[in-house]
Each structure stands twice: as C-alpha cells, then as structure tokens.
C-alpha cells in the first residue's frame, strides 16, 4: 500500500495524493462494519438467491441462459451496493465531519478528493466483478465471453458512472442517514427496471425501451452482450451513448451542485 504515497520530502503528485486519501478511506471502510458487510456480501449473495427464480423464467426465444441473466445482474448489484450505495454514505459522512472542507484547504484538487475517496469502493467493485464472472463461468456453465470488449467497456463505464451518481445523490441530504434514504430510489429503480432482476427481453417493448434509458441498463446490456455475443453494433453504440450521457450529466451535476460543507 505504500505505492505513490510520498511520506516525506518532495512535491506531491495527483496519483500520490489520491493514493494517500484512498489508503485512509480503505482503513475507514475496514472499520465501518455495516458498510463493509453491505458492500462485500450483498452483491455476492444476492444473485444466488435469485437463481431459483431465474430457473423458472421463460427464457425460450430470448437467446438467454440462466448464466447470462444472472451474471450481469450480479455485476449490477455489485455496482449498486459496493460502489454506489457505500459511496453515498462515504461522501455524506466526510462532508458532515467537515473532512471534505478540510481536504479542500490542502493541495488536493476537488476532483482528486472525490476520486481518491471513491478508489477503495471502486476497487472492491472491480474485484467482485472478476470473482462473480469466474464463479458464474464455473458454476453456471457460462463459458467465456463472446465479445469481451463489450463487457469490459460496460464495466468501466459503470465504475465511472456510479461514483459520480453517488456524489450527486449525497449532495441532497443533511446527514448520513438522510443520504442512505436519498440513495434508495435510484437503487430500487435500478434493481427493478434495469434488467437485473427481470431481463428487459421479457418485458413489453414500450416499457423496455423506457427502461433502457436508466443509468444501470446500458451497463447490464453491454455486459450481457459481452457474454452472449449477440448485441448488434447499433445496440451496443446506443448503450454506450446512454452510459456516457449519464456520466456527463452526473459530472455536470457534481460540478454544479456538489456540497463540500454541511448545510448549517
């Protein structure tokens, strides 16, 4: 963990500063048991509780298998719980303790503060995705991805999008508890309507096309398409565009509305 964190003399670099902050955040995460539990176990356990439901789904004619339904869902849950939900709490907690304000008096740039604080959660999300992919491949006969580049693009977009959305959502609350409540709507909508619990392929067309505009949907679509290999270039580009639009929107909102100090 000593990488890039200059302990003594020398001018700091963005990477070094973010590493120092990320290390502290990792320490803090390891001491907040509730957040750690939600981040580590929920995304790993939840998909397997869904398995019986997926087994009973009528997947004939959708080109989907149990594995290609479950894995993108699992990765979606990982983004929602390990990244988004825990980061909403982290940002709100640091703001309430005036940590964000204090950090802003130092050499860190604003973007470095937000990114550095997000790094441990993003890393956990990434590791979970790798573990889940390996587990699904081994246990559900999913095999290797047919278009790995799509899955990779989907994952990377998700890992940028959800910290940014977490920062936006955390701005609309006055306390850590309030932030956890504020995180719920997007969390629930994403679980229900982004193809995680129910594949969009078995929804009515009009509802499905509405659901495609949600932030988690393009991530799930790209990852699923990466494994099945039957996502058309047109659909893939559409998903990437939707994801990029959400990222741009979230970054804009952060720059415009992110609160560095508690409301008093």
């Amino acid at each position, binding site marked *: 963990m000593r990488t890039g964190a200059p302990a003594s003399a020398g001018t700091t670099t963005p990477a070094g500063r973010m590493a120092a902050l990320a290390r502290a955040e990792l320490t803090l995460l390891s001491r907040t048991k509730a957040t750690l539990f939600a981040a580590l176990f929920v995304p790993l356990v939840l998909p397997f509780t869904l398995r019986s439901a997926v087994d009973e789904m009528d997947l004939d004619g959708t080109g989907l298998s149990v594995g290609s339904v479950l894995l993108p869902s699992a990765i979606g849950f990982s983004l929602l719980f390990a990244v988004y939900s825990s980061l909403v709490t982290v940002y709100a907690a640091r703001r309430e303790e*005036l940590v964000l304000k204090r*950090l802003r008096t130092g*050499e860190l740039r604003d973007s470095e503060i937000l990114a550095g604080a997000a790094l441990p959660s993003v890393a956990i999300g990434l590791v979970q995705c790798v573990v889940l992919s390996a587990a699904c491949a081994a246990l559900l006969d999913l095999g290797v991805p047919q278009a790995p580049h799509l899955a990779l693009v989907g994952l990377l977009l998700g890992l940028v999008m959800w910290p940014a959305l977490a920062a936006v959502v955390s701005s609309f609350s006055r306390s850590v508890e309030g932030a956890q409540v504020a995180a719920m709507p997007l969390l629930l909508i994403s679980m229900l309507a982004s193809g995680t619990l129910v594949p969009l392929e078995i929804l009515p067309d009009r509802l499905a096309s509405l659901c495609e505009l949600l932030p988690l949907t393009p991530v799930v679509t790209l990852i699923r398409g990466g494994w099945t290999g039957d996502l058309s270039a047109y659909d893939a580009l559409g998903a990437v565009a939707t994801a990029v639009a959400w990222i741009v929107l979230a970054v804009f909102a952060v720059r415009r509305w992110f609160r560095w100090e508690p409301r008093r």
Partner: protein
Amino acid sequence: MNQHEHVIEVTDLRRVYGGGFEAVRGITFSVDRGELFALLGTNGAGKTSTVELLEGLAPPAGGSARVLGHDPYEERSKVRPRIGVMLQEGGFPSELTVSETVRMWAGCTSGARPTGEALELVGLGRRSGVRVKQLSGGEKRRLDLALALLGRPDVLFLDEPTTGLDAEGRQETWELVRELRDGGTTVLLTTHYLAEAEELADRLAILHEGRIAASGTPAEVTASQPSRITFELPDNYFLGDLPPLAELGVTDHDTDGRTVRLRTHELQRTATRLLLWAERARVELRGLDVRSASLEEAFLRIAREAAGTSASSSGAEMATDAQGSRDGTKAGNAKAGKGTAA
C-alpha cells in the same frame, strides 16, 4: 516573489453568501513576511469568512485577495503548497488514529515533516495510536495545528487556534506560534480572546459586521481609547465639589449612584490632580480604580458603538466573555489602583 511585497494583501474584499447575506463588506489590510496579524471580532463579525477567502475556499464577491503574490482561489496550486491552514473546526474522520490522520495528510502535502516530528511539535507524540474520536477538544485543536504545520508553510492561517484549550495548552500554542513567527513564518490568526491578540499580534484589526472598525498595533488601537478612573464620592460631597473636570483633563464622565467614572486621554495628569485635590480636602476616595486603556476596553467600546443600543446575540455573547475577564482582573486592578495612588 519579491521580498518587499506583502505576503498577504487584501483590498476592498467582499463576501456575499447564497442567501444574500453580506458577511465581508469591503475590508483592506496587508501582512508582511514574518508578521503576526490578528483578526479580532465578535462571533459573526466576518473573521472566518475573510480567512476562508484567503485560504482560497471561495471566490470573493468583490475586491481582491493576494497570498504570496497569487490569487488564492484561481491559483490554488501555486499557493496551497506554501500555506498551512487550521480551520475553526477540525475535519478529521473520527475512526482514524492520530498517526493515520497525519500520514494521510502527509501524502497530500509537499515537503511534509515526518509524522513523529509533527506530533512532537504539538505535544501529541504519546497519542499517535488513539482514534480521533477519543481525543479531547484541545487535543483535536493540536492535531489540527500539527497538520497546518506539516508542510513547513510560509504562511499560516489559524482560525481560533486555542478555542477549547486549557490555560497551559494555550500558553504552549502561543509559544509555538511565536517560535514560528520568529522563524519567518507569516501568521494570520483569528481569535475572540483579546488576551491572545494582545499577547501575540504584531498588528491587528477589529472586525465588526464585516468591516474593519479599528486597526494597527495593539498599542495604537488602545491608544485611541481613553483611560478610566472610577471612585466613590466621599460622604457629603457632590460632583460639583470636585475641581472643574475639564481642568483635570477629563473628556467624558458619568455617575452611577455615588460612583463616578471619569475618562481621560491624559491619565497621569488627571489622576495626579484628582489625588492632590483629595489630599488637600482630606477625603478618602473609596473604590478607587485607575485603569489605562486595554485592548479589551477598546474592543468593547467599538462593539458598543457599532452595535448602538441594540445588543445583537453575538454582541451579547462577546460581552459575557469580556465580563468574565473583567471580573477576573478586578483584583489586579485594585492593586494597580493602589499602586497609582501611592
């Protein structure tokens, strides 16, 4: 940077908050290298709002702030590595230990001191393994100071650095700040402890409602204020029985029952003539209290004048503060009074 330039230069600085509240209403001052400048004021006077602009946490609504020749907000990356900041209230994750906090901050600070050295500097060496949430209020202030000093800054911003410290801790912090100042560090300090400003400041400004009500060296600020003589009229004497007050050099007076309060800019002359009169008249001036102007007097007077008759809540708080110290100095004044009389 040119050696002769001011390290901090503030010109007609303004700050307006979202709701339209104008916290800083056009203030101007400068601080030279190695100088310790104190911003004094009641709560809500605009001290913190001013310091935050100099720290580059927000852009000014008008006027300009320069720190080390740069705009602290627009040119953050040029200013930040050379300044140290202590905010009014901590800002550390409560679940990190003291040394973890310093280590994190060191990773974000150019030319940081080793953790142990920084903690020794503020007397927290033995508390390095303790979680921040278990520190006392005073210890948290020391930790904050350690972080402000971590990068050996050229300019130090200290926002109420000794609030919550006990008397000993306050002395130690003063000693440390003085050493840094003597080493060439420029210090901008805010405080509502008048003694702290009197003790430390080379120059100071008293803020009231976002404006500078008085500024200069502590001696200059107090010199503009009158000294005071208080005594009880002897039995069967009236104010008119005293020598003509103008002849005594009295500029202003008031009475409260039999207690007379005289104000003068020529304390020695007024006191001498008053005491000579009492000697000749063979009367005893009971409760005699002769007091030269102090920063506290100056401060209270300025706060009173500016506030008019309506005591704002912040003014009332300050007055309570001052009341406490006034009670505390009563014994000392009595002694001083005797000394003058003898």
